């Protein structure tokens, strides 16, 4: 415990942990320790490998992925613009900060009625995903912009740069790591937002499959869809964490 374990040891532990998790899930299912609602993992996998199961999962995963990706792109773009606006027009700043904190705490389910009437059932998942990503992104970007030292700030001012130039030359490059931080945090939020949107009567998607499988007591399908959503969220997170590491190396 006194020395930090080496990378190879860490990897070995991680693999052991993953294997332990799989074995535990399988055993709980086999012995019905958690009742019939927890099927053995092997049953879930064999369901995924059947043509119907695979087709259903792939089609709905694609729908959810599209909504999540659209929402992710839209939400991050608007949030970055908003944070930049708050930086360039200082008058807006205190209000926008507080507003972002409030928005951050809004339960996304509360936005559902608004979205169903405005954008309709089909586009609501993407918009809810965009909102969830936007909140996270705005908060990280605002703190990323605030992070530039006042000495550098003064230097730019003394050399006669205006706010727009200072934004482009100083604050934007400095905020790049925060941007990737926001992307890494926002990726799971996008998947969550899209599936929440699908709960409210979208025609297709993993969220819909999860709810209908639950109501019809199709446990293998429920678990398979839940695993697909988890895999999507985890993969997106890991990809953006890698990008974030690269950005950290380049911009700090």
């Amino acid at each position, binding site marked *: 415990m006194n020395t930090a374990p080496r990378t190879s040891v860490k990897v070995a*532990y991680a693999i052991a942990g993953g294997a332990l998790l799989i074995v535990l899930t399988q055993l709980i299912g086999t012995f019905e320790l958690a009742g019939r609602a927890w099927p053995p993992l092997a049953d879930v996998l064999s369901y995924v490998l059947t043509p119907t199961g695979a087709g259903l999962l792939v089609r709905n995963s694609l729908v959810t992925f599209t909504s999540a990706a659209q929402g992710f792109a839209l939400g991050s773009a608007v949030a970055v613009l908003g944070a930049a606006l708050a930086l360039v027009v200082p008058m807006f700043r205190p209000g926008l900060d507080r507003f972002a*904190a409030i928005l951050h705490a809004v339960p996304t389910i509360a936005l559902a009625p608004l979205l169903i009437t405005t954008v309709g059932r089909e586009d609501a998942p993407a918009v809810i995903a965009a909102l969830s990503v936007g909140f996270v992104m705005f908060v990280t970007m605002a703190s990323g912009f605030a992070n530039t030292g006042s000495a550098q700030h003064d230097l730019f001012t003394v050399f006669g740069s205006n706010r727009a130039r200072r934004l482009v030359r100083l604050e934007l490059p400095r905020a790049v790591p925060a941007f990737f931080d926001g992307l890494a945090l926002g990726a799971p939020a996008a998947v969550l937002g899209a599936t929440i949107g699908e709960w409210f009567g979208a025609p297709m998607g993993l969220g819909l499959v999860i709810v209908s499988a639950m109501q019809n007591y199709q446990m293998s399908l429920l678990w398979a869809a839940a695993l697909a959503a988890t895999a999507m969220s985890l993969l997106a997170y890991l990809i953006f964490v890698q990008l974030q590491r690269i950005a950290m190396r380049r911009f700090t």
Partner: protein
Amino acid sequence: MSRLRSAGVNLVHLWPVAFLLICWDVWVLVNGYTSTVAPRPWFVIQDVLAGFADYVPSISYTLGMALGGLIGGTLIGFVGAILVWWSAALSGIVTPTALIIRSVPITALIPIIARIVGYGDPAVLASTTLICFFPAFVFTLSGLAAIPEAGRDLFSVLGANKAQVLGRLGVLYALPNLMVSVRITAPSAVLAAMLAEFLMGTNGLGALFSESRSYMDMERAWGTAVVATVVSVLVFVGAQVAERRVDARLT
């Protein structure tokens, strides 16, 4: 006078909220929506104020479930992290697993919990507890991992055993991290409680929302959304205050 002034400044800084209310009203008027499509904000606020007694049971249920899960999940995560910290091998195995489980979307978790535990209060509480457990676990563990070598060496030179290192040094590093986790998970706990209630439709704000939506009582549905937002913001602000208190006490 200065207190009055700062209160005034605080109010002025809420301008985006007022702006949003006005936009909402204009949007309803311009599109000519009837109140079954989208009610005007003033009627929604009126419904909340006039019928507040109808909201109270749902608010207290959701708040209770969210806070219960927040406190329970955080404590279990804290104790679990300490147990895991005790053994290097266990920590190596459990930490990656916890990270995987953390990325399970709540929307995938709640239906499974509802099927395993059964519809009702235990399922709601289990959902909120589980949502708060993993962040608390991960944050506590990273706090304990940040105990500097020098501090640990000093303690062992002075003959402290592992429990004393934990009680006198580890807590100092783990508690601020634990409070960060409380702040982060507080709104998620409210969201999880509402999603579970919405899905099972038994009790609470989520159930009130789904009920008034199916009766086309749009003022009540939107009112529930507004009330839920206020509850969530208050829980978040409360967690923020608690975090600052703990930080001020420890540093």
